[in-house]
């Protein structure tokens, strides 16, 4: 009940704030320029002015800077003479302009966004991805209707991972690519929205942050030592399953060095709890770190070995 009351209060607060704040910083439409384009593109222009985000922002203005089709598409006089694609700035795969030239048109207005601060540093600009590759300025909403589908239209290698048995809820619509990645550029590897992998994962997986008394070093350094982010054949988004994943590093003592073969399942002649269910994690379950004490008299129930 308390949560609902506080949420309702916040909603009302925002509604009041919006009603009190009026900026009136709008611009107008250069109708003369627009009419030129209408001679051939009437349907597109009308739809843009009436139905697109840009059209409505520009239209709800007063005297001041004027916008028109030429704001984005460049001067249209030559295009009216020769009707060629090359004589006008267009957007998309068939454009006569490079991706950088196309993006420049958008950045004339939108470069002042904090989201685009590192556009020049990102992988997208390096790979000739332009604003128009993902956004359509003529649409009602400038953001892609389905962010995940937009990303997967190019990143098909990721698409195959999303259907594997273990995956983040991306296809279910609960997590999108932009929750973890900044498509507009970042200084981090993979354009992730954090300085490193772990700090990105901690944004949602707060229960894994620690700090722990007993740390698991490779876990603390990089979640991707053991996990993969998009999808995996193995449960828990693991890159390799246990016990083999654990045995790749842990060789000391008897049971890490033992072969857990086809006889060690439930129906096998040598059932082993290092193979059934969660294998090594049947006992060493606190694998991300532990706060349990160490019992010097009996190490078997010690947090030091992630047993508790």
């Amino acid at each position, binding site marked *: 009940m308390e949560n609902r009351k506080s949420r309702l209060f916040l909603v009302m607060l925002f509604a009041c704030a919006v009603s009190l704040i009026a900026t009136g910083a709008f611009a107008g439409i250069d109708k003369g320029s627009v009419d030129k384009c209408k001679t051939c593109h009437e349907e597109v222009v009308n739809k843009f002015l009436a139905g697109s985000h840009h059209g409505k922002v520009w239209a709800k203005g007063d005297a001041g800077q004027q916008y028109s089709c030429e704001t984005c598409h460049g001067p249209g006089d030559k295009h009216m003479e020769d009707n060629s694609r090359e004589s006008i700035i267009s957007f998309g795969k068939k454009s006569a302009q490079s991706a950088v030239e196309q993006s420049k048109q958008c950045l004339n207005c939108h470069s*002042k966004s904090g989201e685009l601060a590192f556009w020049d540093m990102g992988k997208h600009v390096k790979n000739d991805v332009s604003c128009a590759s993902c956004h359509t300025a003529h649409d*009602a909403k400038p953001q892609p209707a389905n962010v995940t589908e937009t990303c997967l239209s190019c990143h098909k290698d990721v698409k195959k991972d999303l*259907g594997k048995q273990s995956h983040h809820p991306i296809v279910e619509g609960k997590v999108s690519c932009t929750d973890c990645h900044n498509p507009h550029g970042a200084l981090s590897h993979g354009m992730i929205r954090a300085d490193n992998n772990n700090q990105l994962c901690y944004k949602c*997986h707060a229960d894994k*942050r620690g700090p722990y008394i007993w740390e698991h070093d490779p876990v603390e350094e990089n979640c991707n030592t053991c996990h993969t982010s998009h999808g995996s*054949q193995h449960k828990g988004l693991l890159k*390799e399953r246990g016990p083999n994943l654990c045995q790749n590093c842990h060789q000391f003592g008897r049971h890490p060095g033992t*072969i857990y*073969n086809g006889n060690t399942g439930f129906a096998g002649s040598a059932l082993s709890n290092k193979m059934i269910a969660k294998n090594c994690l049947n006992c060493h379950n606190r694998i991300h770190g532990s706060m349990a004490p160490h019992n010097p008299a009996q190490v078997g129930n010690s947090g030091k070995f992630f047993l508790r």
Partner: protein
Amino acid sequence: MKTNKVLPIVAASLLLQSTTGSAEFKLGNFDLTAGVGVGFQLTNGAENQSGYFTKYRDYRDSFLGNAWFTAESEGYFMDFAANRIGLDDQSYNLNGGTFGGVKYNLFYDSLIHNYSVGNKSFFTGVGTGSLVFDDAVVGSTTPTNADLWPTSFDYSTKTKTFGVKATYPASGNYYLTLGYANVDRDGIRPSLAGNLGTSPGGGAVELPEPIDYKTNNFMATVGYRGDDFLAVLDGTLSNFDNNINFLNWRLPGTAATTTASVTSLAPDNRYWTLDGKTAWHNLPLNSTFAAKLGYSRITNSEALPTTIGNQTGTAVDLTNVMSDTTFNGDYRYGSASVAYSSNPIEKLDSKVFYNFLRKWNKSDQIAYTGASSATNKLFDYYKHNAGVDVGYKLPFDTKIGAGYEYLKVHRNREDAAATSDGIISVEAKNNSLDFLTAKVKYQHLTRTSEFENSAVGTDASDNNYVKRFARFFDATDKKQDKAALEVDVMPIEHLDLGLGASYQFSKYNEDLLIIGRTKDTGREYFADLTYEMPKTFRFNAFGYFGMNTFLSNHWAQGASPNNLDITLPATDKNYLWTGDLEFRTWGYSLGLDIPVIDQKWDIGVGFKQDRGDGRASFVSTRPTAVDNPTVTEYDDYLVNTLTAKTRYQFTDELGFSLGYIYEKRTFEDIAYDNYLYVSGSTSARNYLTGAGADNDYSAHVGYLVAEYRF
């Protein structure tokens, strides 16, 4: 999950499309369009067959409801969407603001995570921090008869996130963004712990872990943006509170009056970050300079258990053996990044960058003294990363690129004090044909490790001696080659074909006899086809295949005395063996959408199949041969999904949608096949609750929704 999420999201609507366009009606000064959808979904009860079917979805017999509206006035706009109202995967999103001015977003999202259904336990108190059992009910202090277990439950958690965000103003040189998100997560998740308290050799007990988390996230951004200069200050604060930090549970085999075992759960923490970012654009030589400084800290203060039960349930008082009964955790991270990109001439682009990251561990060290003393080690590291990328445009719409990256990591780890990576990459891309784009990339990595254990252990009977040969794959010598090829073909209009292949090959400690991973490979292929006849049909197909292999050496060790020198001849007690693992995944999907009557009636059908297949085989040098049969069922799964839907618009306002989903999953894995709740011998008995054993299902889902647009 949207922890710390304050960005606007429009959740996928089952059916409704939120459209704008000509206003449908006026409400005061607002032009309004709105719609609602009501209906129901029915299933065959598959949600009770397997948690996998409803892993992130709420599929049960229920009503369906969606709603949306868009509103605009002279200076204001508002968009609202509500999806799957009342269900465990419901979502609500409200965006609004003034054109060119303040913008805000409010959202609520519910995420269900079903791990497993139909589980049972001898414990009572499931969902709390105390698990006990009644000998009289379960038959004994060792509850080996699962038929007598009294508690039935599902492993499931629900995460509810509420968030708000506002940016003021949207235009102008300065801006301020504030955001808040509250995340509640509760439920039960499977956990496990060693039984009998002895290791190795003891059994395991599956424990229902109570989840009762609350996270409050705050964010603030202040920015200045000029024509060529931008500066931003970002701050976040996240408080994570776990209502149950320790799980107390009665060890099977101990009396009811004995002291419980204690398993630690997620500790509370406070996490804050502060980042300063700046960028200068339009510098000489068509350049941009960007820099970022960041600092973050994760802290907690936790009272530690001072009394725990041992393997007989006897209370062990640790007060006098631990140096402190409160742990103060403190992780600090500092980061710095600079990058300079330039297009000095039209055909050349370049970038140089440097990143630094350091972790300081300022947590308490708690010393436990006794027969086997231990003090927690504090793990720190720091990383230097630098690189250069260059690209050049050649004739015929060809672009080539090359890059070099260096990464040095220092870590206070026992095995490897530092690793150095050198990564070389080259790539080429061609667009010379209107209908064809091709890209090829190659990368080579060489990693060298400063191995620290080359002289540990006195002799081959010393348990530490084997560390001389053990290499951990994440921080050891490594050579890796990666290659990738992608082709996009559009031979005719509306036909789009994408093909891709990639290969990865890694070798660890080549030419050295070690134990640990020695090699891993990855191969992936995909094909993606879309063909569309506008206003007639749209067909898409996707197929993929992937294979990963892992090869590793191991040294079997019998009971002491041991021979831990792997270079010596094998004995029946100590010998070298190799694990050879192979995992394959493949699948395909087909989809066809047909607008039978334009703007009035459309139908769609689809089929999807995903498969996984794994195996593990072993080669042993043991002198007396022992059968080591290959594991043939190793994450083997098959999922078939069939979908059909139709949408019919009676009038401009009224329409309905009808849909059907069939999905069948089978899973075979040595770890779950022939599942037993109780297994193992008396001294190594395992007690499980069924988590993850409900893998197979056959599901039918149908839905019908009527939509009305105002």
